[in-house]
């Protein structure tokens, strides 16, 4: 997909069905984010929220590039990633409300979605901590002799922390089927990449571990899909790990309601031009891949899904207080629960 919304005729693209799904993942992530923020602003939702805005193209690309048996570890900024695994928005939102209908029965909250059937193994609130766990999942896949790949998503800021370094080295050393997907939105909370790294080229840094490593335009879902698809195929066939740095920009504040007044205006304006969903829409329509009617249908479906998800969540019962001591241990005999 070019800046003007066109893709080279020679380059592969997903099927029409997949393209439609990509588009709906993007819209759904945005709709989920925005409604949750509105609910929080009204005081009806007490949860930490981390909008995906800017990363939708990467999430959509993951949705198509990953196969059903692949596994993912995501972070607190997980809504788009979770949707890309096909997890129903309703269970994600129910978790945000702390309800039994949530992915984690309301015990985890927004940072801790789990859906093992759909391959979302865990999402973590601790920066950088997903990478060592992904190494372990990669090890499991390798030992199983399975043709599955592991994706771990994390931000640019997360590459600073020690655990990331350890995991890169180990994945390269053991030739594990792990694809490290860096969702580089140029900010670690309120600090820009240039203020926390002398060399801001993260792909270059990771290449030095002896691992395949590249940058891709994360605002371009087609380019991102192709790069991820290649990396995943390589991982599944024993070719080892890759680092894929998806270059995007954070289109909102760090968290749901947080200040973003410090963002350089021109940077944000330029990034908004590249906003993946509207660009993809233009391209789908102009290239004739999906017609205007079908696009409108998808948009209406997304709205309906979002409506239904929030309604479901709000109606889902909260856990009973006695459930506090459930799920702490597999076998809790002799445990001093009070």
């Amino acid at each position, binding site marked *: 997909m070019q800046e003007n919304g066109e893709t080279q005729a020679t380059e592969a693209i997903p099927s029409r069905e997949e393209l439609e799904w990509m588009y709906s993942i993007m819209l759904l992530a945005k709709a989920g984010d925005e409604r949750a923020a509105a609910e929080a602003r009204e005081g009806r939702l007490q949860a930490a929220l981390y909008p995906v805005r800017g990363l939708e193209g990467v999430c959509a690309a993951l949705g198509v590039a990953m196969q059903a048996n692949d596994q993912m570890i995501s972070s607190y900024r997980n809504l788009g990633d979770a949707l890309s695994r096909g997890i129903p928005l309703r269970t994600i939102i129910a978790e945000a409300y702390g309800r039994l209908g949530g992915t984690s029965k309301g015990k985890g909250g927004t940072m801790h979605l789990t859906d093992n059937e759909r391959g979302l193994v865990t999402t973590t609130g601790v920066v950088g901590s997903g990478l060592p766990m992904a190494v372990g999942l990669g090890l499991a896949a390798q030992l199983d002799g399975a043709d599955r790949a592991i994706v771990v998503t994390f931000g640019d800021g997360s590459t600073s922390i020690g655990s990331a370094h350890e995991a890169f080295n180990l994945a390269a050393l053991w030739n594990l089927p792990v694809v490290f997907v860096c969702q580089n939105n140029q900010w670690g909370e309120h600090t820009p990449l240039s*203020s926390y790294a002398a060399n801001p080229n993260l792909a270059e840094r990771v290449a030095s571990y002896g691992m395949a490593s590249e940058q891709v335009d994360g605002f371009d879902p087609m380019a991102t899909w192709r790069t991820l698809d290649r990396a995943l195929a390589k991982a599944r066939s024993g070719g080892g790990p890759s680092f894929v740095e998806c270059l995007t920009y954070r289109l909102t504040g760090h968290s749901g309601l947080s200040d973003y007044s410090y963002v350089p205006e021109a940077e944000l304006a330029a990034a908004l031009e590249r906003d993946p969903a509207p660009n993809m829409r233009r391209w789908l329509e102009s290239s004739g891949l999906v017609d205007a009617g079908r696009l409108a249908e998808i948009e209406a479906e997304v709205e309906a899904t979002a409506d239904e998800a929030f309604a479901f969540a709000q109606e889902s019962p909260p856990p009973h207080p006695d459930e506090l001591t459930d799920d702490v241990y597999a076998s809790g005999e002799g445990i001093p629960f009070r």
Partner: protein
Amino acid sequence: MSEEQTEKMTIVAALNSALDVALGLDERVIMMGEDIADPIGGVMKATKGLSTKYGEDRVRATPIVEQTIVGSAVGAAMGGYRPVAEIMFMDFLCQAMDQIINHAAKSRFMSGGHTTVPLVVRAMVGSSNFGAQHSQALEAWFMHTPGLKVVMPSNPYDTKGLLLSSIFDDDPVIFIENMAMSYSVPGMVPTGDYRIPLGEAAVLQEGEDVTVITYGAEVHTVMAAAESLVDEMSVEVIDLRTLVPLDLTTCLESVTKTRRAIVVHGSTQFCGPGAEIATLITDELFGALDVPVARLGGTYTPIAFAKELESLPTEDKVVAALRELVERPSVARQR
């Protein structure tokens, strides 16, 4: 010390004021932590304005590197500075444990007293809004680690006075804040320099029937519970303020009078601070106690996100525990 001028401050404002005073008093005071520089001035805004006023050399925003935030503070302390390291959520001290335990706490001892490590690690107990990885209270670990001091204030006045003492103390101090109190319990605070010595508990309320020993955010829960029981019993409330050094004397004086005591805290009850405090009191006052020293701490579960699943001491739980404690018949010695 100029205690004359006071202002109404939140705990965050008191933190900011303490840091401002310390940076102004001594150029060897420096700070490091994620997002602490302006414009954002810290995720809770505790450091707002300080990098602008004192320069980004002295107030440094770091990458996301908890281990090296604390490690570089240890090194800078060894190099003659008085660093204040900010770790957003206390849970992330997990990343920095090696520097805290094996270096900050032990270096003076391991060097035969030659090396001093005057540093403060500020960290915040989070909230269940963020889930189980942003809400654990870990003070017991640090109490269990010789070489550290542990401070956990409950109000703006103590926060500022204890933070200033901590910064100018020659030992490493773990200074624990609580997210829930950040803006919710404003109080009058002197704008200038003043110090509250480490190791002195405060008796917040005198009483005759029972002693509650607590600290940090639970002070407010306990005070509310005591207030609601005002017609039923006379409750003495002790705010420990610092956990190491521990002001056992104040606790013993109180329990000698009341003969009944409970320790209330937000960290997990099992193997928590309450176990130590209860044991120390029992050691000293065994024969003078009407009933065993009670405890009310967090349940033996991670912190749940759903509000219905409450792990921490609530006002209701404190009320129930106090009623039970006071109504319990004095235990006779069996033979």
